[in-house]
């Protein structure tokens, strides 16, 4: 089923008024996009109010939408989801519905399960949802009273990865520090992994069929969601008031890089990138939303408008763009040559417009909102979800990369540049069976 054939029964009130206003003389009601793009309509209408509710699926409010209309609708879905998952969490990890988003507080998704808590040594069953897992041995005694995490009754977040996909290289910030990553999953995804026993190699072998995270969605069961985040160490001249920050145990995993010893530090980390991946009813290939901090890097061919960047040094003629540091890679190094990052595919005008609207809305809720310092890069979604000759769903846009998560595979080269759905379409479990667009199941032991 394509989104083209999925019609919302009602246009938004403003869109309907615009459409009716434009056809008063002829008596014929044109499709809204005959006169106005979806972005134009939205720019004249109020955004949905900020909400803690994760939208279940895209809302195609326009009849006969074209590709850009649909992209706009998915971008709106991305922002709504971003707001909901970053909503302040209550003591049980659920959204605190008595407040609004804005202050630098623990978020809903930060209480979800980290991959290291699910895929345990020996294929052991993971502790139940809401149960803490101990940090790695080397982190014990490093501190457990972080501002963010004690409030959700959880041991500190552990950032245990410093490598980008396909071993393309680590990302180094302008202070010479390794960027760290974490992958989290929501309860709907976790429950499916547990019920199908996909957390272990033995369980996957016994399951003996492709993994499938599809599930009936209800307001209390939003469907499987994965979040991959990237964090930089707050230091140097970093303005922490511009970031969502956490205190995290930064664990250097000796298994990631040869010759590197295990280490752990309790550090203040600033969020610089966020993938939000949601399996919805109409997107069996999942919806892939990616956000970045607005100060990360300039886009190719666009003005370098920021005073400074997290991952780009202005006026550096000797800096090679998007080149990983030379090996050996050692996250324990006190200083490593910073990466000169350039975003190779600039944001579209429509996405930039929506970003400006959402950033203004977030500032209207809280003038100092850290979340207004993040921007949507784009949303990848399946244009033809049930295409018999393309199980990746013929994604739009064809390529999508987060400059902090796929730094070195940006661009538009088929099979070489980052395409969320194109890449994850090949993901399998440890038994070679497809894993429903997640590589996490490869971590089973």
């Amino acid at each position, binding site marked *: 089923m394509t989104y083209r054939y999925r019609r919302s029964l009602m246009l938004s009130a403003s869109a309907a008024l615009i459409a009716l206003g434009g056809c008063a003389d002829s008596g014929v009601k044109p499709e809204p996009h005959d006169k106005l793009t979806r972005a134009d309509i939205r720019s004249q209408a109020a955004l949905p109010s900020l909400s803690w509710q994760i939208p279940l699926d895209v809302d195609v409010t326009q009849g006969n939408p074209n*590709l850009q209309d649909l992209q706009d609708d998915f971008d709106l879905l991305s922002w709504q989801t971003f707001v909901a998952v970053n909503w302040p969490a209550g003591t049980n990890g659920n959204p605190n519905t008595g407040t609004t988003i804005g202050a630098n507080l623990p978020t809903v998704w930060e209480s979800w399960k980290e991959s290291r808590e699910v895929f345990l040594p020996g294929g052991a069953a993971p502790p139940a949802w809401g149960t803490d897992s101990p940090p790695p041995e080397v982190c014990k005694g490093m501190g457990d009273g972080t501002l963010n995490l004690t409030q959700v009754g959880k041991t500190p977040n552990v950032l245990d990865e410093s490598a980008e996909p396909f071993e393309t290289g680590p990302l180094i910030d302008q202070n010479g520090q390794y960027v760290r990553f974490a992958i989290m999953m929501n309860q709907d995804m976790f429950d499916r992994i547990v019920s199908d026993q996909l957390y272990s190699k033995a369980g996957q072998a016994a399951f003996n069929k492709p993994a499938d995270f599809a599930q009936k969605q209800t307001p209390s069961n939003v469907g499987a969601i994965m979040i991959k985040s990237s964090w930089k160490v707050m230091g140097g001249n970093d303005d922490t008031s511009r970031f969502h920050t956490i205190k995290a145990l930064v664990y250097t995993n000796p298994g990631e890089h040869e010759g590197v010893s295990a280490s752990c530090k309790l550090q203040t980390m600033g969020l610089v990138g966020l993938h939000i991946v949601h399996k919805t009813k109409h997107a069996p290939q999942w919806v892939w939303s990616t956000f970045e901090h607005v100060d990360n890097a300039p886009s190719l061919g666009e003005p370098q408008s920021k005073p400074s960047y997290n991952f780009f040094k202005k006026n550096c003629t000797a800096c090679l763009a998007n080149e990983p540091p030379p090996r050996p890679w050692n996250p324990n190094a006190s200083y490593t040559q910073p990466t000169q990052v350039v975003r190779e595919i600039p944001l579209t005008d429509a996405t930039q417009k929506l970003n400006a609207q959402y950033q203004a809305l977030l500032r209207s809720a809280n003038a100092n909102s850290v979340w207004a310092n993040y921007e949507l890069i784009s949303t990848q979604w399946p244009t*033809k979800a049930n295409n*018999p000759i*393309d*199980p990746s769903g013929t994604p*739009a846009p064809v390529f999508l990369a987060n400059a902090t998560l796929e730094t070195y595979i940006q661009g538009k080269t088929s*099979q070489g540049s980052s395409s969320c759905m194109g890449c994850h*379409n090949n993901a*399998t479990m440890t038994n070679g069976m497809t894993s429903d667009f997640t590589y996490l199941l490869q971590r089973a032991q």
Partner: protein
Amino acid sequence: MTPMDTFISLSIGLTGFKRGALAPDDDTHDIKSLYLKTFAERVTQATVDDILLWYRLIDKRVLGNTPDREERVVTVLFADKPEYELPCRKLLFLWYAGAWPTVVDTPASTHGQTFSEVISAESYTQGLVWRVMQSHPMGSTTYNYGYWANPPPPLSAYLENPV
């Protein structure tokens, strides 16, 4: 009909593929725009304009909205305007191979040789020849791991759907 509409109808008649494959509603690759541009650059804009004009005129004369309508229009086009056959054969080559052909006449028994130039990385992967083979270009596939253990979808799926 816009020039692009006519170009797509002509291309349907030449290639045998359906509109959903050549110009899907949500056209993420938009290879048709590259091909129309290439067609105009290689055979001149004036020639392309003439071909599309004649196609539209003949289209009005052809009766019946049968599935082979575009093919019948092309047949009449070549009968009325045989000088358009070679440029349209080159366009056909472009759609299938993602490359523009240059035919060099030689006295050899083969009566010539065809050299081709791939237009872009995307035209290479979007070539229709891969779909006729019910396969994928070397180095690029949208199938998922282990696809080779299963029979491919029917040819009709490749003729109707985008990749």
